[in-house]
């Protein structure tokens, strides 16, 4: 899976900036996408392209349980968020709803990958290739259950009795 990086070099990007509280009443996915990251980066909506990845620091998606957060990012075109760590509800909402891939990366990848870099993520080998800089990093492998839910295409397509 290839895409370009939009980098937010900070920790604790919370759901209130990913999609501010005033939009919680909105359940139209396309409309939510127009407000994605509004609390942090008002230019996000104009610069994001289909297939882009976000790169960020620790505890990405902390705060509320609002599924609006992965929905707004996913419907903006974001296919994966690469972060040093994730807050738990954002992580499971991203996977169970099959909105985007939450990819845990190490400090080297976080520091060396820059805004605009072309990246290739291969979850079968747990490798992240930086095509622009010709470097390869390891991602943290998904746990067994997460890997299975991702392969199935979300919690509703995952059958715990068969898998």
């Amino acid at each position, binding site marked *: 899976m290839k895409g370009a990086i939009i980098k937010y070099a900070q920790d604790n990007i919370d759901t209130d900036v990913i999609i501010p509280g005033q939009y*919680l*009443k909105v359940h139209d996915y396309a409309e939510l996408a127009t407000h994605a990251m509004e*609390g942090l980066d008002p230019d996000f909506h104009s610069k994001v392209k289909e297939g882009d990845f976000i790169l960020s620091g620790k*505890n990405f998606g902390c705060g*509320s*349980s609002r599924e609006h957060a992965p929905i707004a990012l996913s419907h903006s075109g974001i296919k994966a968020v690469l972060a040093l*760590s994730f*807050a738990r*509800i954002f992580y*499971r909402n991203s996977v169970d709803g099959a909105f985007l891939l939450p990819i845990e990366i190490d400090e080297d990848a976080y520091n060396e990958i820059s805004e605009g870099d072309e990246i290739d993520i291969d979850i079968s080998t747990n490798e992240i290739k930086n095509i622009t800089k010709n470097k390869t990093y390891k991602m943290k492998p998904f746990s067994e259950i997460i890997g299975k839910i991702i392969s199935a295409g979300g919690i509703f397509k995952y059958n715990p009795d068969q898998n």
Partner: protein
Amino acid sequence: MNIVEKILARGSGKSKVSPDDVIFANVDKVMMHDVSGPGVIKVFDKLKKQGISVDKLWDPTKVWVAEDHFVPSAEKVSAENIVKLSKFTKHYGIEKHFKYGMGQYGICHTISHEEAMVMPGDVYVGGDSHTNTTGALGAFACGLGHTDIAYVLLHGKIWFKVPETYYFKINGKLPDHVMAKDLILKIIGDIGTDGGNYRTMQFGGTGIDEMSVESRLTMCNMTTEAGAKNGIVEPDQKVVDYLSSRGATNFNLIKGDDDAEYEKLFEYESSELEPVVAKPFSPENITIVREAPSVELDKSYIGSCTGAKYEDLVAVAKILKGRKVKIRTEILPAAISIYQRAMENGLLKIFLDAGVTVGPPTCGACCGAHMGVLAKDEICISTTNRNFPGRMGHIESQTYLSSPMVAAASAVTGKITDPRDLQ
């Protein structure tokens, strides 16, 4: 096993579970509100299009619904969400729907204890991050998103990774003017907003034994701000009395074994605690009130599931009695039952005499949605749980999080004030 492991073992039909085990737990109660409810309805619509049956719920008697985030409706989208929610509960035969304007209603986490919707030992999930609150009753209480709640509504179970547990041992009774909110803010300041990520935060020790159930609810509520999967206190006679007085019967008090294991032990001496605030823009940004910056406040907000329970309002009334507020101050009891008790016991008169505006239960301004949001550059002291940029209104507004007593004392002076220093 510790209490959470025992509850999850029971819930998944296993004799033993350990941290990192992945289980499907049967759910005893599930909650959604006027934000997560319409989100769940949207998921149901998607499932229908995919040919997945949503004809009936696994058990409508185990589902309850709150109207809290966008009531009273400020505009038509919110109003339509309430209509959608009502049609959904009617269609699926969900009887426990606490409606705005029809007797008891309030913030979902407050209804959970005021109406004894959740019992000790339950596996309880809710479509809201602060579902952790209700762990104070001795339940495994955990917040989930719309897709997971939709899954629970249809299947009655959901997956969990059994969490590691951090045990916080609190020694001794909190001093006067120091509230549970001060203690939990102090803990979050120490471990950080991701300090409890994926874990259980369990509270015990003589300090917790001495605490009221409502103070324990404050403790567990804020575990969300440390990223915890859930917060929990082992149930005791106080919990039984609290829930019995709200009509509950048939208790199943699950407690940890004597040889229960915890990933880490933290210890706090209550006598060393002082009133604190969390400065903008993070709940971990803690300072003791007497060293807080000398800023001119624009507003004091006393509301939310964290800071507008009955005991919180009693504490506020102690401070405001015979005094006047100097800044815009709003008190929004977190449920109608609390509002009513505040009226019967004379608290509302104290508030109104002090110059406060008393509003209806709502999440409103706590999440920057409506009913008193902040303007650009405004500074607010608040009994709520989060102060991220833009949380309570304009992205350039600021919120200091505090206990109800500190918010009340600050309302009187217009500056961040330790209640012990009030003239």
